[in-house]
């Protein structure tokens, strides 16, 4: 399953890229994020509460930044254990391109779940991942640039 989207952000590309690496911004934008602690420039531990279909679970795990190519983009990946609910993992390849003074952010998300979440919610995962991605990037675009996004694919 792959989910793609695009946002236009009213901010210069350097500023957008910096925000993508800002732990406070990420914590504010990751849906259901309860804690996000920095281990290094590219690694963080996170606690995230998510509802997928009928299963609600607190996931604890890692958030990793990789393929960092300032200011063109990076890959942000997360992997969390939800205890008896199973696990969830996913990532987004984020690309930034300049559009005049603005920045166009495109993302390409993949997500995977396992255990109980998969048994009862697998067919909801595409919809859920799409919603979570929109929540994340929507909030991100809003917090970094103004006015709010012009398009959400």
């Amino acid at each position, binding site marked *: 399953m792959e989910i793609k989207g695009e946002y236009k952000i009213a901010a210069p590309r350097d500023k957008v890229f910096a925000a993508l690496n800002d732990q406070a911004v990420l914590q504010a934008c990751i849906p259901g994020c309860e804690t996000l602690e920095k281990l290094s420039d590219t690694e963080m531990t996170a606690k995230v509460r998510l509802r997928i279909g009928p299963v609600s679970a607190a996931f604890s795990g890692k958030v990793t930044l990789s393929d960092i190519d300032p200011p063109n983009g990076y890959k942000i990946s997360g992997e969390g254990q939800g*205890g*008896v609910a*199973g*696990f969830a993992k996913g990532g987004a390849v984020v690309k930034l391109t300049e559009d005049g003074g603005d920045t166009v952010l495109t993302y390409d998300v993949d997500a*995977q*779940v*396992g*255990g*109980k979440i*998969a*048994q*009862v919610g*697998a*067919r909801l995962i595409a919809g859920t991942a799409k919603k979570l991605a929109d929540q994340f990037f929507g909030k991100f675009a809003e917090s970094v640039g103004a006015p709010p996004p012009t398009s959400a694919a």
Partner: protein
Amino acid sequence: MTETGIGARVHRKEDKRFLTGTGRYVDDLPLARATYAYFLRSPHAHAKIKKIDTTAAKAMPGVVEIFTGKDTADAKMGGLICGWVVKDKNGEPHKAPAHPVMALDTVRYVGDTVAMVVANSVDEAKDAAEAIKVDYEVKPANVDLARALDKGTPEVHPEAPGNLIYDWEIGVKADVDAAFAKAAHVTKLDLVNNRLIPNAMEPRAAAAEYDKGTGNYTLWSTSQNPHVLRLILSAFVLGIPEHKLRVVAPDVGGGFGSKIFCYNEETMVCWAASRVGRPIKWTAERAESFMTDAHGRDHVTHAELAMDKDGKFLALKVETIANMGAYLSTFSTAVPTYLYATLLAGQYTTPLIYANVKAAVTHTAPVDAYRGAGRPEATFVIETIVSKAAAELKMDTAELRRKNFIPKEAFPYQTPVALQYDSGNYPPIIDEAMKIADYKGFEARRAEAKKRGKLRGIGFSSYIEACGLAPSQVIGQLGGGVGQWESAQIKFNPTGNVQVITGSHSHGQGHETTFAQLVSDKLGVPIENIEVVHGDTSTTTFGMGTYGSRSLAVGGSAIMKATDKIIAKGKKVAAHLMEADVADVEFDNGTFKVAGTDKNVPLAQVVFAAYVPHNYPLAEVEPGMDENAFYDPANFVYPAGTQICEVEIDPDTGVVEVVAHTAVDDFGNIINPMIVEGQVHGGIVQGVGQALHEAAVYDKDTGQLLSGSYMDYRMPRAEDVPSFKLGYKVTPCPHNPLGVKGCGEAGAIAAPAAVMNAVHDALAPLGVKHVEMPATPLNVWQSIQGAQRAAAE
């Protein structure tokens, strides 16, 4: 026939408690100081366990103990066993990968058992399970059965290179190939027999108690065969001697095969009871049932049928890959071989048959016997290919069957695939089914449906079944690890009422009624004075349990033998009481009589004299009236029948509606027609479920179980089926004292092919060649679209 004897529609004695909520199931057990178990399961299909940290979990409130694979290894616990050795075509026994009770260093399917938490409550156990940290190294999974044996597919076990458990064959391939070379017509078929999840109403459960004073264990389990479970646990897994382990299977709410096997959880609950020092209870949640009950079916098959110019079958060739899942469950190896390929003659005189079965392991739940066990898969292959052949030859589907039926005078009939059918008469069955189904009127109904925009189709399925498992010596020759006789005890009490103690186990079959009818009929005891006792190793001598439609044919026959012994002994006592010669004493309808006189003494009086032997031939006869019998069948029994299904399909939505379904069966003599009807009805519904609705689906890449709840696993419902039309033809079984055959699986064996043949018949005008089960609306709609696209090109 009496009102409660053989042939009577006696209402089920057990239904009073089942319908009023007073049944006693494992979970109902009141055990003082009980603890509760919860199993942490693998969320991955295939992973290495790098580390399990239970420190934080052990400190959680209410936790009594946590066990992992390491504890079972330290205790030198044996692995779970597969009780049937199938030799592959080179004569080598099948590969037998280790099946640890708890995962040691590798998990092999989603649901594999990683840790057992024992706590003061289920909720506390679950909370603690959340706190167990397992460090997994996730590995690629082998999920797609069709590719399981391919080079490069991840291996499930080092002991099974290439994931192959056995490559088995029956028949002479060269002879079959020669027949194909001469054939006027060959019909070819590729099909998938969809994987099913059993879904017994009561989930699996276990409870155990250890008596420190005596060293005795008691295990309550939702088992279909408590003695076999005890035998496996004692001899192979836990080493608790049989005389120190009592296994009780009380009221059990359905099994369909899934409760035959020895499972991890009951093993752990029993073992841990002595470690914990308090009773332990465990009941599966429904999600665990989906994940870990042994699944059923799951074959990929290619079949070819060779015919002469008149449609006479010359030879059949079948190649099947059978899914074993991640571990070999108790009887898994026998299901796609001796319970499948040996049935491929069906009701037909096909003189040459070759079958090759490759069993593969995959990263999915274990697969084992499920209602019919191999025989539904065989029937589905035969009856689908025969219907396809009829369509290709433009012959009437019933006529092609009739042309190839084994004739009545050919019985006993030796098939080319090992079995010898004892009795049968197939043409009258199909005639009766066609009459009941109004076959002649079908085309008019099809035309009428067309006016309503519906595609109507009709499908036949003429099944054969080998059940009543089984002659022990045959089972031994085929690699089975146990005998397959049954025991019975008829124990009169001094006041004349009687306990019938059987080694069969009832989990919905109605034994308490059927078996009581046998004894009431034979001994003339009122049915209310008969209590059928089963399911407890401490009250039954021994027993092989209930599966393979064996309870009446084998267990019922043992009861008849025990009643014979009661009558023989009673005659000696009665002769003494009547001052007559034993040779002159006759027994009829509860009374001993001296032939040719009016002297008589009722059985109750004989029984009383046997327990209060004041006037009794003590020198010749022991007191008491309590007889034991074992019965080992001479052959399988061979029920047969024809089902005819009619469906209507909405071509715009793909929805298939079963609008009529007829079943005519030969079950031999029938003891309780109402119970038989119930069995047939339930079986047909399960067969309709397989054909139209049910599918266990794993993600082909990750091995995640996607159909893990009733939101995604579609069970058949009352609204999905019409009122069934049933009929019977009787050819009594010649080798058991009751003349009975089995009826428990027939419905599920025959129905899938009948339904799918009807679906194919309905869709044929649109050019649809083949629809795989389940024929869901999506599946049917896509088939229609595909055929229309192909026609347009």
